[in-house]
């Protein structure tokens, strides 16, 4: 009996064996399930998905506040698009999931979407009056990572937001890179509580096709760094490759300056878990938790109805504050319930018994 109980909690210590701690927590707190057994892909369970939805929400809101508009782009990209910018295709080639040829056209699952947005910029932007154009989408991108994959940390499908922007001048595009870093600061640091270093990457480590890249480095408990949102100044590389021109204020033709920003939610979730969690389980920021409070009724046969009614009263009061709350009415013992919700990282547990 004790043995079974032990196996439900986390048996590894975060500071001593981070890797094992992380593997256990994502399964036991019901963030992911790996039993579909597709290398590099995972099932995200409701608890994980609700946290991710909240993360998407924070980033989308901030992007909209800074003038970005949502779009949805195709999940596939034709080979001819991918090949337009030479260093882009060179950098991504080993990582592309190619689909079979369909109607003589070779398609790939998008590894990123510069080569889908830039041809649309060419159609949508005629003059400087159409600029800046700031767009984003939420979706998946696919990268055939050849190194060892690890759930959430290194996966072949990444759940993210990618913002793609076009500007009339280099200066405006570089200002966007700064704004992207500020968005990371506002959302990932202030709302999610994850400190980072914005690093302008060395030239040999930039995004394929970019003039320069700024990646946000977050420290894991084992001292290793993980790259979180990155932002790329493309200059005119993609616009030249796609012939995306516009008329500037002097009525002269010029190529667009473009940028891209990619906060990957599934990866930021790694930092949420590893920055805040402890040996008992997850600790979720109030801003991201699917539940702010969990109410545990403590009753016996005689007072069960009375206690549960009291719980319902309190629950509806909390809900009326705009917070998310539930009563755990399952048949488990209160002790088991405490452990489960502690493992899942709910910020507040409210215990209601006879005397309340």
């Amino acid at each position, binding site marked *: 009996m004790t043995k079974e109980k032990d196996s439900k909690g986390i048996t590894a210590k975060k500071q001593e064996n981070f890797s094992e701690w992380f593997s256990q927590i994502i399964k036991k707190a019901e963030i992911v399930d790996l039993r579909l057994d597709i290398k590099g892909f995972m099932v995200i369970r409701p608890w994980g998905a609700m946290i991710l939805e909240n993360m998407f929400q924070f980033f989308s809101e901030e992007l909209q506040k800074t003038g970005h508009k949502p779009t949805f782009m195709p999940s596939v990209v034709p080979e001819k698009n991918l090949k337009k910018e030479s260093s882009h295709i060179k950098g991504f080639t080993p990582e592309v999931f190619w689909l079979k040829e369909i109607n003589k056209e070779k398609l790939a699952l998008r590894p990123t979407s510069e080569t889908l947005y830039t041809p649309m910029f060419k159609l949508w932007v005629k003059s400087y009056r159409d600029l800046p154009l700031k767009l984003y989408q939420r979706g998946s991108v696919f990268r055939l990572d050849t190194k060892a994959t690890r759930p959430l940390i290194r996966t072949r499908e990444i759940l993210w937001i990618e913002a793609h922007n076009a500007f009339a001048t280099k200066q405006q595009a570089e200002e966007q890179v700064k704004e992207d870093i500020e968005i990371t600061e506002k959302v990932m640091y202030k*709302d999610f*509580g994850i400190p980072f270093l914005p690093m302008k990457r060395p030239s040999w480590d930039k995004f394929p096709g970019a003039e320069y890249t700024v990646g946000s480095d977050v*420290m894991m408990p084992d001292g290793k760094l993980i790259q979180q949102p990155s932002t790329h100044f493309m200059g005119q590389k993609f616009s030249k490759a796609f012939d995306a021109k516009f008329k500037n204020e002097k009525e002269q033709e010029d190529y667009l300056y473009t940028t891209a920003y990619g906060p990957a939610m599934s990866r930021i979730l790694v930092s949420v878990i590893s920055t*805040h969690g402890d040996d008992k389980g997850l600790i979720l920021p109030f801003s991201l938790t699917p539940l702010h409070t969990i109410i545990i009724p403590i009753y016996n046969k005689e007072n069960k109805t009375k206690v549960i009614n009291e719980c319902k009263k309190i629950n509806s009061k909390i809900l009326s*504050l705009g*917070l998310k709350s539930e009563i755990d009415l399952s048949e488990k013992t209160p002790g088991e319930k405490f452990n489960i919700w502690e493992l899942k990282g709910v910020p507040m547990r409210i215990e209601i018994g006879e005397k309340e």
Partner: protein
Amino acid sequence: MRDIRKKESLSLTSLSKLKQIGKEYNKRLLKKADKMFEGKIINCKIKSEIKNILNQGKIARINFCSTEEGTKCAEVVEKEFNGDIRGILANQNEKSSGNCVICGKPATEVAYVGRSY
């Protein structure tokens, strides 16, 4: 309270304080995260110390020749210390001094070295 594992009693009428408690909760998490990050960046003036810093799970801040052309130095860092030149701070213009701790040529930048996923 999950983060500090403390119990408090809350009267029914004070439930309205929950939002405020949530704000304080987030502040505590942020403070704790900041504290974990503190002291993790070590100024490093001698090449041989880099490995030690990385082994302690920290980041070495070094004077560096160039993140444009210093690929050879980056290879040294990778081979000898199993580390990466992560880059230079993007939101500050940090001034280097002296020579690159790897090759000894005049430094032009302050770079950060770490191990990564």
